[in-house]
């Protein structure tokens, strides 16, 4: 029977068309016929263990589970016949015998599937008089609270771990009444998607730990937003009470985030309420910070900018966080343009600006990632950079796709992938060798030494049907990014693969569309290398948001004037800025993000900005007015958006890369730093979310080297070492890690203690401190 053959079935007397082989519960769900269920979940495998979905089917003597029954032509189904109802009620009674019925103190109360179904199918008096089973609290980390006494053993969370998160951390141990969900040995749940088990759990067994006892479901108001941390643009539901964000949930969007979000998107909101939020404008006079009112601060900022500019607009530049909204970016560029400067950039963590590239699109739709047959990722720790893309790629891998990585350290994967691990210089040779194996030639390629692995990678990309070559954050930060990109483009071209980018932040693509990235002024590195007299900073922290934080701090501190629009005050900002204008944070302002696929997603503010903070687009607008920039009258962000949209000519399409000069900058010998930005260090908001900072993914500054490198240097694990990089240096602990290749020191960036160092990639030496 072919899968698309249609059949007709009858449910409760209603005729329904369905595809042969579809599950009965899918058909009834689509028709809006409600069948109670607990273990069935549309994204998970069918386990049919809760038995709540029992229905009566003609010619079948016993009730059968709708979630595990496929439809047949002519099948007659009764979801509410006496037989079906008796079965459902019986199941409900069994499910409740061990349940504590502690709804009044349960966070799930009011939005609990068990509660809802119990109202319909439960009896009002329990016949169970024996003792109930109790499970003491189990600690599974800082994000998820457990009350396994409430568990009904649907195993959704277990299946989520195995099938979606890709790491089997939870299991069902014991048997019968002694069965218990848990980790068996006490350990935290470490998946970067772990928070989704809060949503899949139909009862209050798994709930949000940070939101515990904070609000009742019925007090919350739901708003919509788009996640700011990566280029997926996950759709969110913001739940708030009295102008405070209480929690964040995914909003289903099948073509973007399906029904999942990363833990970063779910728990970052807690950073909004960090103690160092700026709630009043601040100006620095004679080295002293003082609060003032908006008028004074704005005048001060406008005067300062004007003075720094002098007679030459090129003397000033703007450095913009790639998580800023499209409106903010557009206005920043327009403001700078009005002052005669084309120096605007949001590619703050790019290590090499030679050559030219198209807008950094994914090159395909997000959903396309599911169906790839071959993927080569260059410099991408995708699981910890864009977790939802990693999930999509894993789906493809589960269906048999070949996935390979060219990476400066071995990645912790949740499926088997081919990893070509080599030092930063080795990454270039590896790619060149793959290109050579494909029969290409040219500079870089000709000298490459081709081994079996390179041959295999070439073979896989050439023979697989739908293939792509993707560049990630580590590639962008590489000091020879333009070479990696060039080689990636050559390989993609020779193998008929789509060349794509996995942009770092929510608006990396948007920045390109409004000329904030890749415009004709100075790029971020050039702006810092040849210092400007004045800078405008939007949402950035000098120590943590730049490729080379030492350089950034130096150029900023030497500038005549620095205006910072920021939601937070941090030490490095206070040191380097002259005025801090408090702007709205995540959920506090309307705006638009353009995700990796090129989808424009606009959102409204959900809550009011904290204190006197104002949406950044409004602050920019007033600054524009004070600086007499023409055509700067906007009444709403949608006006800005419209203008930005009209002015943008770039459309999502094929990617291209034009190489610049093809000389290798990365030292071939010695120790070269590979500085990744850890998952929970990516932006100001995440860095301030305490629960995320308590997870195992929140690592602290350290030098990771392999045992041989440590031995050669005479270091042992835990030693404090002095890392010297150019004229910068910092002391940190040494970690011995088999995952690091020879010639490489992994020193993550954007952590406290790494702000004293230079570029994310570059030569380093280690000394005993």
């Amino acid at each position, binding site marked *: 029977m072919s899968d698309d053959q249609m059949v007709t079935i009858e449910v409760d007397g209603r005729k329904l068309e369905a595809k042969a082989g579809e599950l009965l519960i899918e058909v009834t769900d689509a028709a809006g016929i409600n069948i109670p269920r607990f273990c069935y979940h549309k994204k*998970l*495998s*069918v*386990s049919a263990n809760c038995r709540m979905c029992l229905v009566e089917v003609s010619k079948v003597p016993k009730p059968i589970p709708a979630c595990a029954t496929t439809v047949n032509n002519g099948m007659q189904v009764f979801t509410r016949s006496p037989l079906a109802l008796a079965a459902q009620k019986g199941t409900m009674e069994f499910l409740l015998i061990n349940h504590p019925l502690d709804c009044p103190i349960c966070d799930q109360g009011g939005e609990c599937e068990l509660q809802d179904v119990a109202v319909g199918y439960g009896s009002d008096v329990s016949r169970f008089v024996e003792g109930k089973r109790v499970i003491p609290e189990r600690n599974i980390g800082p994000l998820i609270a457990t009350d396994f006494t409430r568990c009904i053993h649907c195993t959704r969370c277990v*299946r989520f771990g*195995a*099938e979606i998160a*890709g*790491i*089997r*951390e*939870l*299991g*069902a*141990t*014991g*048997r019968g009444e002694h069965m218990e969900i848990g*980790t*068996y*040995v006490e350990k935290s749940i470490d998946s970067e998607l772990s928070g989704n088990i809060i949503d899949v759990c139909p009862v209050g067994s798994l709930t949000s730990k940070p939101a515990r006892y904070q609000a009742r479901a019925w007090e919350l108001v739901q708003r919509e937003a788009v996640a700011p941390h990566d280029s997926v643009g996950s759709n969110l539901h913001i739940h708030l009470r009295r102008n405070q964000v209480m929690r964040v949930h995914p909003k289903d969007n099948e073509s973007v985030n399906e029904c999942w979000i990363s833990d970063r998107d779910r728990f970052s909101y807690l950073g909004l309420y960090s103690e160092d939020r700026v709630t009043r404008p601040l100006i620095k006079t004679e080295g002293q910070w003082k609060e003032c009112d908006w008028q004074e601060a704005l005048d001060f900022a406008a005067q300062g900018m004007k003075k720094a500019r002098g007679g030459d607009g090129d003397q000033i530049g703007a450095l913009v966080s790639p998580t800023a909204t499209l409106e903010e970016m557009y206005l920043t560029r327009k403001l700078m343009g009005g002052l005669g400067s084309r120096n605007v950039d949001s590619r703050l963590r790019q290590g090499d600006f030679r050559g030219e590239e198209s807008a950094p699109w994914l090159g395909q739709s997000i959903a396309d990632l599911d169906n790839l047959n071959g993927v080569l990722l260059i410099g991408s720790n995708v699981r910890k950079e864009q977790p939802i893309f990693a999930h999509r790629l894993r*789906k493809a891998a*589960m*269906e048999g796709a070949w996935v390979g990585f060219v990476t400066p350290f071995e990645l*912790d*994967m*949740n*499926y*088997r*992938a081919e990893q070509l691990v080599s030092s930063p210089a080795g990454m270039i040779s590896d790619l060149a060798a793959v290109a050579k194996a494909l029969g290409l030639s040219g500079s870089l390629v000709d000298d490459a030494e081709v081994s079996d692995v390179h041959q295999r990678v070439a073979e896989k990309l050439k023979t697989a049907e739908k293939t792509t070559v993707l560049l990630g954050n580590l590639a962008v930060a590489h000091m020879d990014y333009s070479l990696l990109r060039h080689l990636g483009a050559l390989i993609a071209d020779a193998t008929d693969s789509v060349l794509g980018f996995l942009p770092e932040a929510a608006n990396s693509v948007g920045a390109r569309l409004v000329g904030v990235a890749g415009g004709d002024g100075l790029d971020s590195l050039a702006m810092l290398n040849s210092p400007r007299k004045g800078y405008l900073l939007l949402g950035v922290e000098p120590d943590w948001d730049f490729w080379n934080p030492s350089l950034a701090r130096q150029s900023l501190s030497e500038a005549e004037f620095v205006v910072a629009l920021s939601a937070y005050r941090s030490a490095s900002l206070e040191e380097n800025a002259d005025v801090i204008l408090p702007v709205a944070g995540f959920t506090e302002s309307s705006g638009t993000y353009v995700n990796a696929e090129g989808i424009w997603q606009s959102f409204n503010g959900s809550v009011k900005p904290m204190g006197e903070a104002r949406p950044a687009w409004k602050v920019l607008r007033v600054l524009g007015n004070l600086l007499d920039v023409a055509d700067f009258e906007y009444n709403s962000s949608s006006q800005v958006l419209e203008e930005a949209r009209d002015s943008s000519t770039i459309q999502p399409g094929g990617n291209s890369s034009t190489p610049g000069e093809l000389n290798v900058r990365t030292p071939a010998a010695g120790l070269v730093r590979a500085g990744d930005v850890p998952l929970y260090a990516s932006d100001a908001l995440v860095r301030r979310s305490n629960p995320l900072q308590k997870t195992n993914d929140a690592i602290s500054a350290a030098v990771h080297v392999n045992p041989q490198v440590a031995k050669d240097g005479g270091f042992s694990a835990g030693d404090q070492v002095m890392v010297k990089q150019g004229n910068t240096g910092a002391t940190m602990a040494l970690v011995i890690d088999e995952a690091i290749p020879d010639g490489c020191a992994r020193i993550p960036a954007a952590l406290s203690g790494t702000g004293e160092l230079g570029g994310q990639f570059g030569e380093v030496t280690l000394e005993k401190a």
Partner: protein
Amino acid sequence: MGFKNAPMTSAKPVEDKAKLFSSEICSEIDRWIGKFPEQWRQSAVMAALQVVQDDNGGYLTQELMDKVAAYLEMPPVSVYEVATFYSMYELKPVGRHKVCVCTNVSCMINGSDRIVEHMEKKLGIKLGETTGDGRYTLKEVECLGACGGAPMFQIGNKYYENLTTELVDSILEGLE
């Protein structure tokens, strides 16, 4: 992709598996692995646990379960699930003779309560406990499929059926 065919395997298999157990144990586990299709080496988990448990004086430790997981390239928690589900695996030291007495329906109807009571009194321990001299452990189990000979118990690899208190006495005394 379903739960059953989602690889229950670890993404990074341990390379030197031979170091995990003695060569005899490895080859015994390998013999079991050989009975299943190649991509299903985890199917040998029950046999592997039994082999390892026998070698360890009748019980499993977390370390041993983790090693079995590594050997079979599966997540440790999947091994814990198996080891905690079946009553033939022990997670704590047991006595030399593990008396697994069935108290399921057929045996219960045929007087397993009396058998249990008798043994508890005789050995001075409750179900789930071990005698001080380390000789006997009493364990309650579900139906062992010998209902025709109910009430029954199992010691080692042997079933003893149609038990009476006298028979129990002589069986227990006959063991060293």
